[in-house]
């Protein structure tokens, strides 16, 4: 046997020895759940209550398309019983290598601990016909910002409750009860949101990125144009001029911007058109005071209503 092989075997033995030292200590009863975004974490928390530990990889004020696949996330993914993802290729730029490197068989795609929440939701903007990158960074499977419709929130919560009940059958009644409670509170909140938005049905708005189709459909907003000329392509001067002309023509007075985009172009468009820029939160945790799914809509509704009122 050559020295090289001996050395390799030594390395392997060392690594295995480390493993045995690191054998997981008896697991607590709580399910350990990771989600890709804060919204899924919030919904999981609603249903899971104190039977689960939930943490999101992305922060609420981060662009979920561009999260860094930091190794520190591996430490958390390694111990996860369940990974809940948005899917529809939203996380394609950063999540797959994390999953592969996690060394956790449970959360591999197709594994018992991998849950793609998009299967439960109503997905808009599924492209029909030819899809190409000439359209920008399109999502061939449909628009992944689907959690911004409370009906989808309800469906996702139900899907998560079902998954949790499968993984922890002893607490099925607990999860069902929490889901019922969540649904009840959501139904009440939707009544409130509907009445708040009722005077503004059909309002024309411009948004920075295509993050709001589900929200706009649910609350009857009319998204007429985007600051981005194409999804994922930064604003261009020619498109901005066209946009200003169109906003003046159509009398559009509201620009919705996600917290992770630069405000320079939206502000200059606003000053040219007399519109108001609203930094709307697409996700729970976008600001420190928005800590759950209800507060997310409360926060956005308040901003929207104020902006709509201010611009007649």
């Amino acid at each position, binding site marked *: 046997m*050559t020295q*090289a092989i001996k*050395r*390799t075997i030594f*390395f*392997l033995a060392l*690594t295995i020895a*480390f*493993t045995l030292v*690191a054998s997981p200590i008896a697991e607590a009863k709580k399910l350990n759940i990771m989600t890709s975004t804060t919204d899924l974490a919030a919904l999981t928390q609603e249903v899971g209550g104190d039977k689960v530990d939930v943490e999101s990889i992305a*922060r609420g*004020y*981060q*662009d979920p398309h*561009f999260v*860094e*696949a*930091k*190794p*520190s996330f*591996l*430490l958390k993914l*390694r111990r996860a019983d369940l990974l809940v993802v948005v899917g529809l290729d939203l996380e*394609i*730029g*950063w999540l*797959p*290598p994390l*999953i592969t490197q996690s*060394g*956790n*068989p449970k959360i*591999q*795609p*197709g*594994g018992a601990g991998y849950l*793609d929440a*998009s*299967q*439960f939701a*109503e*997905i808009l903007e*599924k*492209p029909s016909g030819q899809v190409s*990158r000439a359209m*920008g*960074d399109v999502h*061939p*499977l449909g628009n*992944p910002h689907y959690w911004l419709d409370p009906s989808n929130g*309800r469906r996702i919560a139900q899907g998560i409750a079902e998954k949790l009940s499968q993984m922890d059958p002893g607490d099925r009644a607990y999860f069902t009860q929490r889901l019922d409670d969540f649904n*009840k509170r959501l*139904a009440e909140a*939707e009544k409130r949101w509907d009445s708040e938005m009722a005077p503004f049905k059909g309002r024309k708005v411009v948004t920075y990125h295509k993050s709001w189709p589900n929200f706009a459909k649910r609350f009857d907003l009319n998204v007429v144009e985007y600051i981005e000329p194409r999804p*994922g392509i*930064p604003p261009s001067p020619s498109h901005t001029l066209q946009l200003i002309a169109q906003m003046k023509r159509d009398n559009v007075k509201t620009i919705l911007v996600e*917290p*992770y*985009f*630069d405000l320079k172009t939206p502000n200059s468009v606003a000053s040219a058109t007399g519109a108001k820029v609203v930094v709307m939160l697409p996700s729970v945790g976008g600001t420190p005071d928005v800590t759950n799914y209800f507060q997310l809509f409360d926060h956005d509704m308040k901003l929207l209503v104020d902006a709509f009122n201010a611009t007649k």
Partner: protein
Amino acid sequence: MRAVIVAITVLLTSSLALFGQQAPPSVPAAQNAAAPQSEAAKIKTLEDRVAALEAQVTALTAALTASSGAAAPAPAQQPAQPAQPGAAQPAEAQAAAAGAPSYPTPDNTTLGGATGQAKALNPDISVIGDFIGDAGHNPYSAFPSMSMHEAEVAFQSVVDPYARADFFLSFGEEGVNLEEGYLTLTALPHSFVAKVGKMRAAFGKVNTLHNHVLPWADRPLMTYNLVGGEDGINDAGVSVQRILPAPKWLFLEGTAQMFRGDSADVFTAPNKNDLSVVGHLRGYHDLTDNTNIDLGFSYSRGHNDSVPDGQNITNLYGVDATLRWKPLQRAIYHSFIARAEAVWSEREELDFERKAFGWYTSADYQLGRRWFVGGRYDWSDHQRNSAHDSGGSFILTYLPSEFAQIRGQYRNTRYGMFANVPGETPGSNINPFRTNELLMQVQFAIGAHGAHPF
């Protein structure tokens, strides 16, 4: 799918046939005086049958959904509760009657994303083109005046529930090279991750990176002089990695690799047993949400070509450090990365051991969404003689979109060389040879290219 459709059809047909057989006995009854009543009874029977059939169809659809898994778009009805066609509506009706606010799910909503049927079981396929132009006089440059330096074709997919496969074929202008092609076992016990195939060895940072993710058009002098050039330590073998136990604030990962022993001009394996090994220890720590530091220690050992029988050994030791800053809320606009990497080489030659050292440091700052500016300093001994090279670069990169980039690099190099210069004695140090070059690089990607590790 087809089997289920056939089953449903057969079921429906046979039900109808059965119904047809049952119908005649009720006909005489209909001829009696109580005709309207029996009409109602008949309708009732029909209704019952329809309800029963509906239940069967629901049950079958649910079974079909369950068997075809999550990929299929979920049917409008709740699949989890088969054979209760009427149950849902009364519940909702009750809720409404009780005055509770109710937002029933519209039944005609299609749930789930579009299924990427077009590519069904095909792997993700992508091609990344890398065009490099090199202006300026430099006889030692790896680049001609203009070249389609590389077209990297990638095929990536999950193999089965336990593994995934990644292939990277590098098409030059004249030939094809399997840059990497390996199987990753993701479902091993005790959190091990193993790779089998041909791969870039986990020696330092720059050796693991594909051309298109480098922050420069070229690679550092250290790589060309000590670590095998552009291909680097890249060989067929097996790799095992695992996250090691460490304090909570520290990510610690160990990698052990064993290769055949053929890697560019670094290692050669005239005998089957002349394997090479690579070990890598990586420590990572989040200083803040925005800032992190990454440290690596590498070791590699293999046989060299100083004597034909391969009895002489080369040992390589490496240290790498990376500091990253990226403000989370403005991640797409600003970032800063500083890197440094050093390699020590101990190469047994005929009658002595030649030591060599090389290092580089570089920094890249993202000015805006599309602009990056960077610089690099290089210094490296030669592995096979006593001369050393040094140099510096200034880099400006522009990204029209996520899928294309244009880069300009001004490169100044001082080659401490001798042998290739005509009229000089090989092996002797002569006056350094200075070069100034302008490298132009255009890179563009088509298709679905999987993300690279951090």
